[in-house]
């Protein structure tokens, strides 16, 4: 049995590696790819490969499923655009929806869940009101959670549309306000690029840095392989399109206090996906890179999470990064009392 997610990483990096797989090897690869929400990306990556006939319909299904996800994501973005049009403020799409709206390689075959948008902090209450008017409702009626979101998070409490059953996350910055790196949201909004639809996406450097921030500072590396695959695709496309990309990226990384995070993400992407990175930006390999790789690959051929201890360590770290210690204690106390 496959002991980690290496076959998926290998197949994404170098599709030729699938040629040596036997039946069970393919079944392992598919279970891992589904568990990591990378089956659509994998299916596109294997287009044109000599794939066994037993596997071909599975990949075709994945492509059709992500085609539909793309269509639904764009529709949902347009619903938000219409609801917010009267406010005349910038609506910046984030993550998966941004990749497909801007027609980037990172959007090819990507699974997309919620709609994430970013707006200026001073327009937040007007945005909230407009969305509630247009049929979105609060998901979490719990007063503690609601207050917690409003005081400390980088987004409104999640809203869900009562007819379409789709969630929207409204961000006013990219990381929790209590987190230590504090990217500059106003600079991100100012540099955002307008699409034909009237919606915005972040500038290339900011878009990559947001993905980096998400990988390193916001989470416990759940979905990390997909996050890193986004980073690989963005780096390849942006650095090929623009000679100045690495220079601009350096400037923006400093502005957003994300230089070490960027360096780490580039090293990990290089190690796993052979991403062409500018060595100066990636910096020296650190011992902790090894722990990150261990955590990112913690998935066996049955699709199960493995390496409980490593996972737990990253989970605790994610809370530690998000909150100062006293606040963390208060938060865990409040959560515990409510059971």
């Amino acid at each position, binding site marked *: *049995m496959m002991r980690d997610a290496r076959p998926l990483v290998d197949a994404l990096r170098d599709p030729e590696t699938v040629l040596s797989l*036997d*039946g*069970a*090897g*393919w*079944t392992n690869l*598919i*279970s891992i790819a*589904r*568990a990591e929400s990378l089956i659509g990306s994998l299916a596109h990556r294997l287009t044109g490969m000599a794939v*066994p006939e*037993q*596997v071909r*319909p*599975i990949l075709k*299904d994945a492509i*059709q*499923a992500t085609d*539909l996800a793309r*269509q639904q994501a764009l529709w949902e973005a347009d619903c938000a655009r219409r609801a917010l049009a009267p406010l005349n403020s910038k609506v910046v799409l984030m993550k998966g929806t941004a990749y497909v709206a801007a027609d980037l390689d990172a959007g090819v075959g990507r699974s997309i869940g919620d709609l994430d948008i970013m707006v200026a902090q001073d327009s937040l209450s007007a945005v909230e009101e407009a969305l509630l008017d247009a049929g979105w409702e609060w998901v979490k009626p719990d007063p503690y959670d609601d207050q917690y979101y409003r005081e400390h998070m980088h987004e409104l409490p999640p809203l869900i549309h009562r007819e379409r059953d789709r969630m929207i996350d409204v961000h006013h910055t990219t990381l929790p306000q209590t987190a230590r790196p504090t990217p500059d949201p106003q600079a991100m909004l100012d540099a955002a690029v307008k699409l034909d639809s009237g919606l915005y996406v972040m500038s290339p450097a900011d878009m990559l840095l947001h993905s980096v921030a998400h990988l390193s500072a916001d989470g416990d590396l759940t979905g990390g392989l997909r996050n890193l695959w986004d980073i690989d695709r963005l780096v390849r496309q942006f650095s090929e399109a623009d000679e100045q990309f690495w220079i601009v990226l350096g400037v923006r990384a400093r502005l957003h206090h994300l230089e070490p995070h960027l360096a780490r993400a580039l090293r990990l992407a290089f190690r796993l996906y052979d991403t062409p990175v500018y060595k100066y930006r990636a910096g020296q390999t650190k011992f902790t890179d090894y722990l990150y790789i261990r955590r990112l690959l913690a998935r066996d051929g*049955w*699709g*199960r999470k493995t390496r409980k201890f490593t996972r737990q360590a990253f989970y605790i770290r994610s809370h530690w990064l998000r909150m100062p210690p006293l606040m963390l204690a208060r938060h865990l106390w409040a959560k515990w009392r409510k059971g």
Partner: protein
Amino acid sequence: MHQLYLTVGPTRFRLASTWRQPLDQLAALYKDYPTSQDGYADFTVRLEPEKPWRRYIRPSVHISGDFWLPDAAPLPLDQSLLAAEMGMNLQMALGWRRHLLLHASSVEKDGKALLMTGLSGSGKSTLSAMLAEKGWRFMGDEFALLNPDTGMVHSFPRLISLKNEAIAAMRAIVPENRFGPLMKGTPKGDIRHVMPPLDAVNKMKDVAKPALLLFPRFGHDPALRDMGKSEIFVRLTQASTNYVALGETGFRALTRFVDTVPTKAMDYQSGDQAEELIDSLWSKLP
């Protein structure tokens, strides 16, 4: 993890379990089905302890796999066969895209299929099992698979899942050696699985043209009623687990089905009454 490969209709499953018991039970009940030894599978189902110590102490089976629901309740180990069946259903319901899935039972005669759909307790499963003993080919008691390109129904003849009173009723017409273990006190009451007739397994790749759709309702005076197309359409969207996931393909497959397949609501109080009503409708089909 112990593992077992099973092929049901068009779908190949890989089942992985911490315990041998559910896989041994499945292997016995699915002994006539083709087994793939090449390692390929469309879906993986996993049966694991909810917490590590729950492998031995009051063992409880958590159902997951390639596709999973966050709030699936675990089952005790003596219901692990049910857990495995639910795990396979879950993969189909959430992950299958090659057909429009209708939550319906189906049986075939002369290349034509009768589909029965309705809420739990409508008797659709029991009726299909009963007809399967009376000259019809059993195609499935859980999902009917509608091919969006051809409009044909594909068979998915998993074990027949009998609940409560239906167990004794079927015991009267099916020999004991086709029954699985009795599981008492499951979330759906008492459950016992029955192996479909051998003919249903041997012909599980044969497709049929949908010829009649019924919405059976048990416990009312026997009657047949017409239904409006829009009502049929809406009820079938609710009875389909992947209608939304298929997008336009699902819409086209379902409108074609509603436009071409005669449909009735059927009330009945006994198997004999139902059989009579079905025969009367079937004999008048073009």
